């Protein structure tokens, strides 16, 4: 215990160091666990959505004109053998709050529409179907404290907030509605059923694709995770530097403790306990900070995902012990890793080693060379992984090797660069500055590595996010280019609508498609008319000259990237579309989030070679000012059901707004990471400044003013930061390339085209210089204020 207290007393005398250590580790943990918390929360929400939107995962039957399905239609379908299940859905006001009610018929519904696996497993049929009834609500939901509904409300983790899942009979009572809102068409149907159209007039509605959703959102989360991990790595550099310094400074204390009889094993144990204690403290703080970061950012994320992807996420953050535990654990492991080297040195320290403090971690030229060799090997491994490796793990190995390799190469590269600069400089002071900077390098190298990683992560992630953003906006433009979209009951009504709209609007474009199989895979073929809408907006990845003219005249077709990749199609390759119809590929377009193949050809050809062609949907181009008039005219002339006319422009505007908001999340994380790296730089510079008096004193004695010396100190730091930035740029771009072209392809099967944003780099460098100036200024001001007596003392003290 006295040994422990003795060891700890160091921190009392160096509170700044303690703060650095705690804050560094806490920030690293905070970034990591904040990102994890956001991801985890979003995933939980998807899982709930996937499980409980339930109905969205199945094909549905709906009234052609909207509105409830007559009960007789339901029984007619069942009595024809079709396995359908009714759902009554609606909204309920309770104590001023609106609840969504989903009434499920548990005897016929797929089991995953109810919690606990439905009646087959966890639900008691007697209680659920009979008596007053039961209803499932989200965990922690407060509803109906006065019991006005007379229901037993059961909290369940699978239910999304604001949702009530209950028996259809209860829903019928609560909502005063007998006819089902829609029917679910079960995926497995008996063989030999009569044709659906001969039994019912209801229209089939495709499942509301959770698949596309998860692909896009997975990509987003994967990249966030990568980011969180990088932030953590940067934080570890701080911790490593601080712990190393603390050990170095306490060498006399260790020697004394050992000399008065403390066994080595005990000393190691005490030091380990110290690191653990500090890590727990910092980790706890970090988890709490991470929670705050996540809670602050999550509403933005939730808003985006809901509006953009249609994914239901409630913007509230639940405290999940799992990620808190993981955050704490990773802080512990990180601290132990950081301390390992220092502990090893303590273990090998001779009992009566000179107690004189050396500059910490003075690396010899030899170790710099070794580091450089390791760095080159790692970079080579990373390149090899990118070129020949397959699989997601390989992608991440590639990423890790790239970053570590670049970090290890940094001191060598900086030293070389300084030598190169030094060779061109004349004058004693300049040569001294270069020589002194090179001598300073080993002490700063860890902090500079952290800065490199932070800058590279910034460049990499902002490039990735920027590319993702541009790609996504392009995709939105492609999908939502028209001002209005109108869905009719059938092709005939759609033709009438188009005829009706023709004099009122700029253009009505039929959205015609047919499903077919090409090369054994399902492909949706779309027919387009020749219109500027496509020429101006459709995002083509690869194209041939005058491609839209040739599409219009039926000479070529366009395929989406998925089809091109899956069937290994290049420009000019022929595609057999139908008997007697083969067209060369004239272009490849991006189609993010769509799992199936797609092709675009002229509408004439489509109609001639495919049957049936669904043309019930139309895109309407109209002066945006007149949108509302057109909608009103349509409403007056046709009995279109709700949702048949979609004002896509306003949806798109809202989506883009929220999308931008989300990327503010990434922006905030970027700033935080850079902040952490700057903090590392500050910590290192402060450490060095206290040891640099002997180097600076002779210059002062030769007549340089303290102010000049302080300016030189700042300039040196800035020069190192600029050089580090120069190395960080290619590393960051390589990082972005690996994320977009390796990790994304391995994870999702499509590649995001990489775009570069040089203005962002300049802004980042400016930011880095600004923060580094601040970091360098503090010790420089210290130098400025050093009393001349202290500088003189350097010469009187034998060191």
């Amino acid at each position, binding site marked *: 215990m006295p040994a422990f207290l003795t060891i700890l007393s160091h921190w009392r005398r160096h509170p700044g160091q303690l703060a650095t250590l705690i804050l560094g580790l806490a920030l690293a943990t905070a970034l990591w666990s904040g990102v994890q918390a956001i991801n985890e929360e979003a995933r939980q929400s998807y899982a709930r959505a996937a499980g409980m939107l339930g109905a969205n995962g199945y094909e549905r039957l709906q009234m052609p004109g909207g509105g409830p399905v007559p009960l007789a239609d339901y029984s007619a379908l069942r009595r024809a053998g079709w396995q359908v299940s009714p759902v009554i859905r609606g909204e309920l006001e309770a104590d001023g709050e609106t609840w969504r009610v989903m009434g499920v018929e548990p005897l016929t519904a797929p089991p995953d529409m109810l919690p606990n696996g439905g009646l*087959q497993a966890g639900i008691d049929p007697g209680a659920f179907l009979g*008596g007053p009834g039961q209803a499932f609500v989200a965990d922690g939901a407060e509803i109906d404290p006065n019991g006005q509904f007379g229901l037993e409300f059961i909290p369940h983790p699978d239910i999304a907030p604001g949702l009530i899942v209950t028996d*259809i009979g209860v829903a019928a009572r609560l909502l005063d509605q*007998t006819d089902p809102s829609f029917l679910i068409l079960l995926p497995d149907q*008996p*063989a030999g059923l009569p044709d659906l159209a001969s039994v019912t007039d209801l229209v089939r509605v495709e499942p509301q694709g959770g698949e596309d959703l998860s692909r896009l959102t997975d990509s987003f989360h994967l990249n966030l995770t990568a980011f969180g991990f990088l932030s953590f790595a940067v934080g570890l550099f701080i911790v490593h530097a601080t712990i190393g310094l603390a050990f170095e400074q306490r060498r006399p204390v260790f020697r004394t403790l050992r000399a008065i009889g403390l066994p080595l094993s005990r000393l190691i144990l005490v030091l380990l306990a110290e690191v653990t204690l500090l890590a727990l403290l910092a980790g706890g703080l970090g988890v709490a900070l991470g929670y705050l970061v996540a809670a602050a950012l999550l509403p933005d994320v939730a808003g985006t995902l809901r509006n953009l992807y249609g994914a239901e996420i409630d913007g509230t953050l639940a405290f999940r012990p799992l990620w808190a535990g993981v955050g704490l654990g990773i802080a512990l492991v990180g601290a132990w890793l950081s301390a390992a080297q220092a502990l090893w040195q303590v273990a090998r320290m001779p009992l009566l080693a000179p107690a004189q403090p050396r500059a910490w971690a003075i690396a010899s030229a030899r170790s710099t060379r070794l580091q450089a060799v390791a760095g080159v090997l790692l970079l080579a491994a990373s390149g090899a992984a990118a070129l020949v490796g397959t699989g997601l793990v390989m992608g991440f190995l590639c990423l890790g090797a790239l970053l570590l390799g670049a970090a290890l190469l940094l001191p060598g590269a900086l030293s070389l660069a300084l030598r190169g600069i030094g060779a061109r400089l004349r004058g004693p002071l300049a040569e001294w500055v270069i020589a002194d900077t090179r001598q300073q390098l080993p002490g700063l190298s860890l902090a500079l590595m952290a800065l490199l990683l932070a800058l590279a992560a910034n460049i990499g992630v902002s490039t990735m996010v920027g590319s993702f953003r541009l790609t996504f906006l392009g995709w939105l433009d492609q999908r939502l280019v028209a001002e209005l979209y109108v869905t009719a009951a059938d092709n005939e009504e759609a033709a009438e609508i188009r005829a009706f709209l023709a004099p009122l609007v700029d253009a009505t474009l039929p959205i015609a498609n047919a499903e077919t199989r090409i090369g054994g895979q399902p492909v949706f073929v779309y027919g387009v008319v020749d219109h500027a809408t496509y020429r101006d907006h459709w995002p083509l990845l690869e194209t041939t000259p005058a491609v839209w003219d040739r599409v219009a005249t039926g000479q070529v077709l366009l395929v989406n990237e998925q089809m091109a990749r899956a069937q290994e199609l290049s420009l000019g390759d022929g595609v057999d579309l139908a008997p007697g119809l083969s067209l060369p590929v004239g272009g490849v377009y991006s189609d993010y989030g769509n799992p199936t193949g797609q092709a675009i050809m002229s509408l004439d050809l489509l109609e001639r070679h495919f049957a049936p062609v669904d043309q019930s949907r139309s895109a309407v181009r109209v002066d945006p000012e007149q949108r509302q008039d057109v909608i009103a005219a349509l409403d007056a002339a046709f009995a279109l059901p709700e949702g048949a006319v979609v004002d896509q422009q306003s949806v798109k505007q809202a989506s883009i707004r929220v999308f931008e908001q989300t990327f503010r999340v990434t922006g905030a994380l970027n700033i935080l990471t850079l902040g952490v790296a700057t903090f590392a730089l500050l910590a290192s510079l402060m450490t060095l400044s206290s040891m640099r008096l002997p180097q600076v004193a002779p210059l002062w004695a030769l007549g340089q003013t303290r102010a000049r010396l302080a300016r030189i100190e700042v300039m040196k730091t800035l020069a190192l930061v600029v050089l580090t930035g120069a190395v960080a740029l290619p590393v960051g771009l390589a990082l972005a390339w690996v994320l977009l072209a390796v990790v994304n392809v391995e994870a999702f099967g499509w590649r995001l085209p990489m775009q570069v944003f040089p203005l962002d780099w300049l802004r980042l460098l400016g930011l880095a210089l600004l923060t580094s100036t601040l970091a360098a200024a503090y010790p420089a001001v210290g130098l400025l204020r050093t009393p001349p007596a202290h500088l003189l003392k350097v010469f009187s003290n034998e060191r």
Partner: protein
Amino acid sequence: MPDPDYRLSFPRDHGPHPDYRIEWWYLTATLQGADGRDYGVQWTLFRSALAPGEDEGWQSPQVWMGHAAVTSAGQHHYAERLARGGVGQAGVTAEPFRAFIDDWRMEGIDEMRLTARGDAFAYDLDLSAQGPLVLNGVEGYSVKSPDGQASHYFSQPFYEVTGTLTLPEGSVEVTGDGWLDREWSSQPLSEDQDGWDWFSLHFDSGARLMGFELRGAETAFSAATWIAPDGDATPFADGALRATPLETTVFEGREIPTTWRVELPARGVDVTVEALNPAAWMGVSFPYWEGPVRVSGSHSGRGYLEMTGY
């Protein structure tokens, strides 16, 4: 509650009795295919009341469950349908007689049409009653335990069957004998009874035997109805019928007797009843064993065996 003084009346009692907790329309048939194979067919509609009586639409407390199966020595296909009452998905009317769940139908009593369909099978059968309805127990009041649990229970054991089975390998024309059981009650089992073994046997002589044994914690409770070829029925009270398991088959971890010795000494019956397909397990919501059997010994013939509670 079943009432011993209640007298069955038709066509009324072909229809449902929603004030009773449980009721079934239960048809089994032993068939011979044009391909020379033996087949068995089951069609059952269960009604279960969460509360007595009937109500409108989704508020109906009645739940319906249909089971259909086709069994041969090498195959056993079954399907289940669930439905709630009140919305036209399942139900029974007495006049004209019609029982249905989804597209499965049992229509008519004397001349009956029977259809059902599963993922791997379908059947479409015509049944023609060659004899009278038979009331089990005393005037159709069938006692199930010494404590007095009872049901209303009658049968039509004289169906001649023709029709078509559709199986994965194709269609097969079949002919044979059918047996309809109608039973309703509110307390089919006494508390210490955990299941029953039920036999419906068509003897080559033209006589039929219905017998069951309810397995209690300590003793079994049995009852039987001997049905002469002309339909003259003789009920036998507890103890007259003895059923002894001879061989068992393990299915889904349960040991199920698939060969039995069945004795009714009062009629000189001492037969071995052997499952055509021991794997005739109905893995439905409430699983049980049900399948066609062969009869040999003092009498020969075919029949159906149902075993629950294993």
